[in-house]
């Protein structure tokens, strides 16, 4: 991750494709996971990832971003695209905040039905974990995944969701408690 800032800077200065490739290789799996745990759909996640990077490619050189603000910017694009997609498919016109919190394409039943599919991708324990995650709100799930899967700090997560550092900490600890209880059942 330390080199991401260097890649961004070099790409902004030179426009050389090799730097964009390095940025892509570093960030693309993270954005993919962000979509995948929301949609549990490989194809849709890949489509959305492509759309995010089309926008990043077209705008990155016009920005003045450092490593952290780049992450915030990219995840905001990802979030907005997901909301657009969600609204388009469901006809939902709720405000952005509540849409973010209610995007729950999957539920516990979904995991039970598709457990064999997920077993191929994760261990059995992970399938349990995914089912427990689906009990959280959309925001709680996003924040937890960014913190513990993507290893992001509180400030970056706070930037992505436009919330204070303290709010994000509160969400994380509450969500962890729910998750622990769900997994212990």
């Amino acid at each position: 991750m330390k080199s991401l800032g260097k890649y961004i800077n070099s790409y902004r200065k030179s426009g050389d494709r090799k730097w964009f490739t390095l940025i892509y290789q570093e960030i693309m799996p993270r954005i993919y996971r962000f979509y995948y745990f929301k949609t549990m759909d490989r194809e849709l996640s890949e489509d959305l990832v492509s759309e995010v990077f089309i926008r990043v490619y077209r705008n990155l050189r016009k920005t003045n971003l450092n490593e952290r603000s780049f992450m915030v910017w990219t995840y905001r694009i990802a979030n907005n695209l997901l909301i657009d997609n969600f609204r388009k498919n469901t006809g939902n016109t709720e405000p952005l905040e509540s849409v973010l919190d209610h995007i729950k394409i999957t539920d516990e039943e979904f995991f039970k039905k598709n457990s064999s599919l997920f077993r191929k991708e994760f261990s059995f324990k992970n399938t349990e974990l995914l089912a427990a995650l689906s009990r959280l709100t959309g925001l709680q799930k996003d924040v937890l995944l960014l913190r513990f899967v993507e290893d992001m700090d509180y400030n970056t997560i706070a930037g992505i969701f436009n919330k204070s550092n303290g709010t994000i900490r509160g969400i994380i600890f509450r969500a962890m408690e729910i998750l622990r209880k769900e997994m212990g059942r």
Partner: protein
Amino acid sequence: MNKRTIKVIDKCHILIKKGYSIDHCLEKFRDYRQEIKDYFTTAESLNTLRAVRPGKNFSENSLDLIISRAKKRGKITGIKPVHSAVPVRRLVLRPAMIFLLIFMLTVFSFSGTLFASQESIPGEALYPLKRSFENFRLNIYPENLKDGLHLQFLNTRISEADALLEEENNDDAILLEELIIDIDKQYQACKQYNCINSGNENILLDSIDSVKNRYQKKYGNNTQNKDQNKSGQEQDLNGHNGMEQETGKQNSSRQNKGGSNSHQ
């Protein structure tokens, strides 16, 4: 989870980042052993989700497609780029540039006006600015250079009077009268600073005489009428008579000098 537990877990996070193990943390905060253990076990299981990655085909071939699609698209609107956390350009450079621009505009417009005022004659809007600038120059010039400046101002006054006399405007009489007083004052100042010598004295006096004579010819009748009307008010007339007397003195001194030169 209470506040104290949250603080302990935060401390554990810091210790782990520094390279200590979870066991070290469990040992250090024995009272919270169970909470810490539960928390980090859950965190560890969440961390296993990192194994989720896109398909090999997508990872290898998607970038070419993304770039080609990005190049084909028209202008995208609605995405505002998020700028750096420390927007140096916005906070420092932009106000500095604006200040510099305003400063330069002010300086250029003032110097432009000042430059334009140098060609003005009495009665014009920019003339007071020209005179103020002359006074300013007089104040800042060192004493040994003031002689040249006084001489320059005297010549300027004479040319201004010439310009006014050439104009066919009867309202200029008062202006000319004031200007002739100024010319006399300037002549005296020049004398004080020794900027008048045998080489330029005759030329200057000729020019001053010529201005006064032309003024008399052009406005002589008008001023006499004015004098009659303002019998009690002597200020302008006295000034003018004084000037004539002064000119007379100057002429006689010139004649004397001419005589002495011829004797030599």
